[in-house]
């Protein structure tokens, strides 16, 4: 038991070390204020929190409602979720001032799903998701700067500015995007899992989709294949209850998405509770590695509309939105937990918030889009096919 805890704590340090800035400074003489901040950030004593909303299980036993975490992890949850929230709000105002164009689907409200998932995964596990992917990219090791650049179509964006909001990827951390066509990423997820199992990588794939995509035929094809071949894939349905403007009860005969795998076991999770998400994903990962496909339904909510073109209030009441914000907001939940357990003070939290705001503000970078990228990456490099040039002055161009 103790060794288990130590191992878990060790894993947590590995996961959060890169993001914890104060580890080095804590070794040097520090001021009083810094000491309390640094100690919380590296305190790895395990604490047990009871998860408030019980899981609903389908063809499996639900995991325990007692989640083990550390102050370090909780602080990290707060910082990351707050950063994600600031980033999405910044994207909102950039879109309104027309720096970001095209389509922009914001994730604020759903941060706990991403953060809880990452806490239970390693970078060997693959993630593939739909178009609400800014925060998933951040969770997979992306930086706010490359996300902002990508949103504005700049060359130093994570996809060289060619993908935009919906197409962010991170190859070294096994993040397969970022997909625009609803539901099309789920069979892809099954394929990734097959490759992992075949190469004996000891990792799982999380194929994420929404309640709207849950009615796509290709999802059922993917689930059948995954269950048939015992692939280590976890289908994660981020149920924010609205497929664009359509409420779940108006598009699905059965809005119990965790049951829709039928022969695939599933869990319904409170998606606004990062610890509940982490617990469930850990459980699902173990299942997927040993037995096969699993479904997780994250009961979550988005504050913004479907995209920046959608005010988000024609199909739901403002009371509903503010109600969720007051009662279930994921960041507030962690804030209350941190203060209740006296892990940090209000001043510490304010500092963390200020740092996050600064990081986002700094990341709004300026660079010119470079036309040299227009014709690249259509085929594997070296094909050299001749095509028409971008304007009549350049009559022909050769694909690089």
């Amino acid at each position, binding site marked *: 038991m103790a060794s288990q805890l130590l191992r878990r704590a060790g894993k947590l340090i590995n996961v959060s070390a890169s993001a914890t800035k104060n580890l080095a400074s804590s070794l040097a003489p520090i001021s009083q204020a810094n000491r309390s901040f640094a100690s919380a950030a590296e305190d790895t004593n395990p604490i047990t929190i009871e998860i408030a909303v019980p899981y609903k299980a389908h063809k499996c036993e639900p995991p325990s409602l007692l989640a083990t975490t550390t102050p370090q992890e909780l602080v990290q949850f707060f910082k990351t979720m707050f950063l994600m929230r600031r980033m999405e709000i910044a994207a909102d105002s950039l879109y309104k001032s027309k720096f970001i*164009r*095209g*389509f922009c689907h914001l994730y604020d409200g759903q941060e706990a799903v991403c953060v809880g998932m990452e806490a239970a995964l390693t970078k060997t596990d693959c993630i593939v998701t739909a178009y609400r992917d800014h925060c998933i990219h951040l969770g997979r090791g992306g930086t706010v700067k490359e996300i902002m650049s990508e949103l504005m*179509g700049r060359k130093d964006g994570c996809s060289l*500015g*060619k*993908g*935009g909001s*919906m*197409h962010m990827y991170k190859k070294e951390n096994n993040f397969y995007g970022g997909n*625009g*066509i*609803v*539901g099309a990423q789920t069979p892809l997820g099954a394929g990734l899992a097959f490759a992992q199992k075949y190469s004996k990588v000891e990792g799982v794939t999380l194929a994420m989709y929404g309640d*709207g*995509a849950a*009615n*796509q*035929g*290709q999802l059922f094809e993917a689930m059948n294949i995954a269950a048939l071949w015992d692939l280590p894939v976890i289908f994660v349905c981020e149920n924010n209850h609205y*497929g*664009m*403007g*359509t409420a779940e009860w*108006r*598009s*699905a005969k059965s809005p119990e998405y965790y049951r829709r795998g039928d022969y695939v076991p599933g869990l319904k999770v409170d998606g606004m509770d990062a610890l509940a998400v982490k617990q469930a994903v850990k459980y699902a990962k173990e299942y997927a590695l040993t037995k096969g496909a699993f479904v997780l339904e994250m009961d979550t909510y988005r504050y913004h509309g479907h995209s920046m*073109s959608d005010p988000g209030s*024609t*199909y739901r009441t403002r009371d509903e939105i503010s109600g969720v914000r007051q009662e279930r907001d994921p960041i507030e939940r962690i804030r209350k937990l941190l203060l209740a357990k006296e892990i940090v003070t209000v001043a510490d939290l304010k500092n963390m918030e200020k740092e996050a705001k600064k990081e986002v503000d700094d990341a709004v970078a300026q660079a010119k*889009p470079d*036309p040299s*990228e*227009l*014709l690249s990456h*259509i085929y594997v490099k070296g094909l050299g096919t001749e*095509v*028409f040039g*971008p*304007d*009549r002055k350049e009559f022909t161009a050769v694909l690089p």
Partner: protein
Amino acid sequence: MVCNTCLFSVWQSCMMKACRMRKLNLFYGIRVRAKSWSYVFGEDVGFGGVFRCTTGLADTFGKHRVFNTPLCEQGIVGFGIGLAAMGNRAVAEIQFADYIFPAFDQIVNEAAKFRYRSGNLFNCGGLTIRTPYGAVGHGALYHSQSPEAYFCHVPGLKVVIPRSPTQAKGLLLAAIRDPNPVIFFEPKWLYRLSVEDVPEGDYTLPLSQAEVIREGGDITLVGWGAQLAIMEEACVEASKEGISCELIDLRTLLPWDKEIVEASVNKTGRLLVSHEAPITGGFGAEIAASITERCFLRLESPVARVCGLDTPFPLVFEPFYMPTKNKILDAIKASVNF
């Protein structure tokens, strides 16, 4: 297009006619084998749709005839084919043409071939698929595509593309009433941009008939949809340099009006086709090949195609990708000075 007024009146004319027909039938005691109705369905059409095309329809005609579907294009089209096979008019909306590909199998393998394979026992002629297509300035890869060429390759389908609100109303009514499955591509660029006085009341415009919208003698330009506005600008610029352009709106791409284009090219001796879709394998290629076949000895210069580049529809690079007025103008001059 001023969608509210335009398409609403389209629906009114169409659906009320169906209603009236039914009442007449009952009144005269004529037994109709299939009680035919019109239906409008698709993702989010109930509240009016993402482009407000179906605003007010559910209130007027009822939720049993104007209803939302779940997010499943293949299901939507397959369902529409079934409805149409029972003699109804099914108007299915695919929210963006970029999403039509899950339904590609249903359209190509089922809808287009239903009449043929059943020896005319069955057909789904009552099916009309409406879908917004084309560039909109910021749509990027999956909200800007022009997939008309894929469907022009399928015998059994009709492909119709209007250029303006007045045209849209007449062509859409014709498409819905046409006894063949029709795909109706609506240029989304025009939803907010184009304002016109659309005549109230019922009128249709003929399918498979192109329209000469500008007369000229030096070169024939052929296009469809939103691209015509760009081509018109190029024609105006060209006329300042003494080149007189004839501009033809194809309106129906499949089956297309070869006669009008042939007659025009026989007059001018030059042809230019322009479309937003990528140039290779675009519908311009079919027009070029057919006209070269028919007018070979009359042609004074090679058929010019000014189209989108052979790239996925780009995000920031859209201005470079698009067949702009200047590219068309350059091609006109090159053709005339060949």
